[in-house]
């Protein structure tokens, strides 16, 4: 791990958000280092996705600031926010491909909407991206005809195609079997190394994410309880964080403990 901390590309300062009267984020302070893979872990329903959506302005905080390259996006008007969003891409939980378009059209969508590239150029880029995510020859299929893993790959291709500085991943491996989850993780890491974007990932895949992240942060009770490089993170003394990351290694603990209890009963 580098000793010098890269400059933060996204900074959240005291972000608070309540949804449906329930406080979800209670003063989140977080810095996302440039060009690295940062993973935010936390309980299901603990506000991880909410946190991610604040970074790209899909949600606005009740209080606090979200700085992207030192621009506070919480106060931007729609037009200026769209300018900032050009730096971003997001891979959604269900990949959020447009049902009415083929994979090819889905990946071409941002290019056709936001650039003036000629059709041949668009096609070339799209095919290149499909190849990068291992979907060569699948371009003519509709999202409904794809498996969960393939949909994630297509979503990743769509995210990559504009060459964004930052890609947000909302639980990229949810609903995939462990083997497929690993392939997707590897793919994210591989493309990150190749294209050099800043990756922010939200996940609860412990311990897999330790292997692919440069930094790990834990969202606990609406605040960031801990943020560190993986090795350091795993040695944390924070009791709440310890409890959460130990679940990943629980099988031995549970089997020995449970075994003893049954015998006593």
């Amino acid at each position, binding site marked *: 791990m580098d000793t010098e901390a890269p400059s933060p590309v996204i900074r959240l300062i005291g972000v608070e958000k309540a949804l449906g009267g329930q406080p979800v984020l209670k003063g989140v302070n977080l810095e996302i280092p440039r060009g690295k893979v940062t993973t935010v872990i936390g309980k299901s329903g603990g506000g991880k996705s909410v946190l991610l959506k604040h970074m790209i302005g899909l949600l606005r905080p009740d209080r606090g600031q979200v700085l992207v390259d030192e621009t506070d996006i919480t106060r931007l008007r*729609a037009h200026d926010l769209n300018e900032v*969003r050009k730096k971003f891409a997001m891979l959604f939980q269900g990949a*959020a491909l447009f049902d009415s378009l083929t994979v090819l059209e889905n990946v071409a969508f941002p290019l056709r909407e936001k650039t003036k590239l000629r059709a041949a150029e668009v096609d070339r880029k799209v095919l290149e991206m499909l190849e990068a995510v291992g979907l060569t020859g699948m371009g003519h299929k509709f999202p409904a005809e794809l498996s969960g893993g393939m949909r994630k790959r297509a979503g990743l291709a769509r995210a990559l195609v504009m060459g964004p500085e930052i890609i947000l991943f909302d639980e990229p491996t949810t609903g995939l079997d462990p083997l497929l989850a690993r392939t997707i993780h590897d793919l994210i890491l591989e493309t990150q190394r190749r294209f050099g974007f800043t990756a922010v990932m939200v996940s609860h895949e412990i311990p897999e994410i330790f292997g692919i992240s440069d930094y790990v942060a834990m969202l606990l009770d609406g605040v960031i309880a801990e943020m560190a490089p993986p090795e350091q993170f795993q040695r944390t003394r924070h009791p709440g964080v310890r409890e959460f990351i130990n679940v990943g290694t629980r099988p031995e603990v549970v089997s020995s403990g449970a075994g003893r209890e049954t015998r006593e009963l």
Partner: protein
Amino acid sequence: MVTTAVAGVGRRSLWLVGEMGRMMIFLISTVAWMVRPPFRVMQVLKQIHFIGVKSLFVIVLTGAFTGMVLGLQGYYSLRKFGAEGLLGSAVALSIIRELGPVLSALMVTGRAGSAMTAEIGIMRITEQIDALDTMAVSPMQYLIAPKVLASVLIMPMLCSIFDIIGIYGGYMVGVNLLGVGSGAYISSMESSVEWKDVYGGFLKALSFGVIISWVCTYKGYHTTMSAEGLGTATTEAVVLSSVLILIWDYFITSVLM
């Protein structure tokens, strides 16, 4: 006990006022996005196909039977006064002024409006709308505005098809089945239907097009994140759209008369 009831009424009223405001803002922002480039011609054409062409069959079917039953009812009512000759006028006026616009709007609500709500609702639940936002493409412009524009353009056409088929249905029953004179049917229609009736009917169809697409896209856009939420949204869209069509019909008629 009394205070809870009053508080409940107050809460409902506040919600209602808030909802009306949100719907109004939604409509205004749709129109604002409609007149801003890039213009989504392909999207509008697709929607015209979906709302218009695909509703044709049901419009023709309901139009024919509405006209036929009017012919039947009208004939037996008018015969009491010995005025069967006025059947053409009775059928044409009720269809052009009232039944054409209202029934075609209700049919389109059931067929295309509910599908609109479901489509947008699913896009909301599966985060496709958020995805558009993150790509800096306005969902209002890409999704909503083409639907509203298409349905405003297509409703008067569907209504006129309903009118023609309905009048012909009345003709079939009155002339071919019950023996009203063909000349009497046509000439009574000709002498009683005025341009302002046709114009009024089109104006109604136009405004119903706004109501259908507005209510149905709004409900889809604000679907809550569940399958149940989607079902509720679709039901609410169809009910609210139908009710608004009938209420608005009364007011616009009272102004046109």
